[in-house]
């Protein structure tokens, strides 16, 4: 019993770790898409900021400096996306794709030139990483049945960015649904003409939304390189930006459901690792690839309208042309 319980706890613990960057990136995507800008470049922004965070942390020796630069780099890319799609009304998908591909190459080229380690950044020691925090009384309370281990294994022992990611979700909900900025943001994604008629700048609102997304992606990237791992490696985001995009759709562009979708996808990932080579009685070995593919499969099925309906913000994907 307690063995199974502990396994479940450890899987959930891994779920939390894997879901963190997904949640941050998906919230970034939520801001962008709610404002009417499709952001396929989540992946590229995360990768660039992971590289920036790992490089700066390695050189300066502080994870916070890495985080700061990561956010700046990610915001710069977000502004590039805005410049192309909002100012010049370029295709949002093409722009996002360009950012992803550009970053994929640039991180390796710069890493090679700066660190001479085949595109990797130097391995970080514990001083230049975000380390796990043991919450108060985790050891003492561990003896309490059920709740003790949950507190010790699942809730305590993560790094600060994990707690930040989970704190961001209610904040995003509050900003999007309870503030003036949020109301305008949602309006500009549904009906930019109405927002324009009301005398607000569609362009400014969309840039602001992208900037918020830039900050969140920067944190996600820093988490991947300086908290979850201890250096930058080639293509280390490995499609997490796209999974975040899928989670955004799966959660129907609402913060809390998006977070649940991220946790579901993170859980599947954690499960795939745990089930590697395990033979389940009566079923046999479940191919890991099948579990890995499930998030994508679920998203395709959802998008096809077989389970519920995913309706994106009405104006997303279209540049706004002001009438004269």
């Amino acid at each position: 019993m307690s063995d199974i319980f502990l396994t479940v706890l450890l899987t959930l613990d891994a779920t939390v770790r894997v879901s963190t960057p997904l949640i941050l990136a998906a919230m970034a995507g939520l801001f962008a898409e709610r404002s009417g800008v499709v952001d396929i470049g989540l992946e590229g922004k995360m990768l660039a900021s992971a590289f920036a965070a790992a490089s700066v942390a390695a050189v300066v020796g502080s994870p916070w400096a890495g985080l700061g630069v990561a956010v700046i780099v990610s915001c710069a890319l977000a502004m590039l996306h805005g410049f192309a799609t909002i100012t010049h009304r370029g295709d949002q998908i093409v722009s996002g794709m360009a950012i992803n591909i550009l970053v994929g190459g640039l991180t390796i080229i710069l890493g090679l030139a700066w660190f001479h380690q085949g595109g990797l950044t130097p391995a970080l020691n514990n001083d230049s990483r975000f380390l796990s925090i043991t919450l108060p009384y985790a050891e003492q309370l561990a003896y309490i049945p059920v709740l003790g281990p949950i507190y010790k294994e699942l809730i305590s022992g993560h790094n600060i960015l994990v707690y930040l990611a989970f704190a961001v979700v209610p904040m995003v909900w509050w900003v999007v649904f309870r503030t003036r900025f949020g109301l305008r943001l949602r309006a500009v994604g549904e009906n930019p003409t109405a927002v324009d008629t009301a005398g607000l700048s569609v362009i400014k609102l969309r840039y602001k939304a992208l900037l918020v997304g830039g900050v969140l992606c920067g944190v996600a990237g820093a988490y991947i390189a300086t908290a979850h791992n201890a250096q930058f490696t080639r293509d280390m985001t490995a499609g997490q930006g796209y999974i975040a995009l899928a989670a955004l759709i799966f959660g129907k562009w609402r913060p809390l459901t998006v977070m649940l979708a991220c946790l579901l996808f993170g859980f599947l990932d954690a499960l795939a690792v745990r089930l590697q080579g395990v033979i389940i009685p009566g079923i046999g070995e479940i191919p890991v690839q099948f579990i890995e593919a499930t998030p994508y499969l679920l998203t395709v099925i959802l998008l096809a309208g077989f389970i519920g309906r995913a309706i994106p913000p009405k104006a997303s994907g279209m540049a706004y042309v002001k009438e004269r």
Partner: protein
Amino acid sequence: MNRDTRITWINRLLLPLLNILTAFAVTAVVFWLIDVNPIEAAEVLLYGAFGYEEGIGYTIYYTTNFIFTGLAVAVAFHAGLFNIGGEGQAYVGGLGAGLAILFLDPTLGAWVFIPASIIGALVFGGLWALIPAYLQAYRGSHIVITTIMFNFLAASLMVYVMVHVLRETGQMTPQSELFPTNSWMPFVHDVAAGLGYSIEASPLNLSVLLALVCAVLVWFFLWQTRWGYAIRATGKNGTAAVYGGIKPKRIIIVVMCISGALAGLVSINELVGYQHRLIMDFHLGYGFGGIAVALMGRNHPLGIIVAALLFGTLYQGGAELAFEMSGISRDIVVVMQGLVILFCGALEYMYRPWLIRHLAPVDQQQETAGVTA
């Protein structure tokens, strides 16, 4: 020259040229950032791509892949669809080609094997695009998102098939057994030797002819047939096309199947032409590279061939660069692809207002005439 012709010139020639130049200029800045002299790098790169026979062979070999994926992206673009799934379609196309060869009797001749593998690649690549196309046409899901998802699904599927089904017995690496010799697409150096010429061995094979034939066929299909007209009309103005009696759902299905099938042909060059077995990740980067090629080639087969040659040159030259100079790798080509997609795609019209203001300003007389009229 009146204003309209000037604007046409700006759109057709000046703008694309400036965009490419910007992409090149920014690449030069990247070179400068990493302390590599761009001119020296360009020399090494060009020597690697064209300096010796084997290099040329490699360059054209890579070009072939880019022609296939560039055409794939362009065909979809003409219908107003963005096929981001070339990556997955090329991969699954490889499964089609591989299965066709592995399940046929190995004693058969090349005249059975090669057409069979081509059909296998076309069908599997096309089918992998058909599902997203169907979902877009009849279930309303967005093609870009579904094709992205299908890239990942393709990767998972292929790993599963390679590890559990097709892995060569007694081998650790997930790869299929070697294709029988008579199924190989002939190497150009072998063909040349048969004709009495001797050229250095390289992976270049007759798939390049297949690519050129495809380019001609795509041109003919898009600009000389009723279907092509319907496709272009849908891409230019979907609503007008519907009024003209064109059925957009059918167009989506047909266009995406053609697009996926073309992407699938990458496997003919890579697997049937060179690797001679089904391997992992043979397709990496070509699907996305096709986007850059199509944008740079302005979605026209001729432009695509030229753009594909440029990227083939960069790919082969980049390998030489990585070999000759320390501190640089082939990923510089990926950087360049990203910049081309950025400047020729997303920022396509960045210079336009500025160019029009300076080169084709609105005539004072015309303007007042327009106002009074």
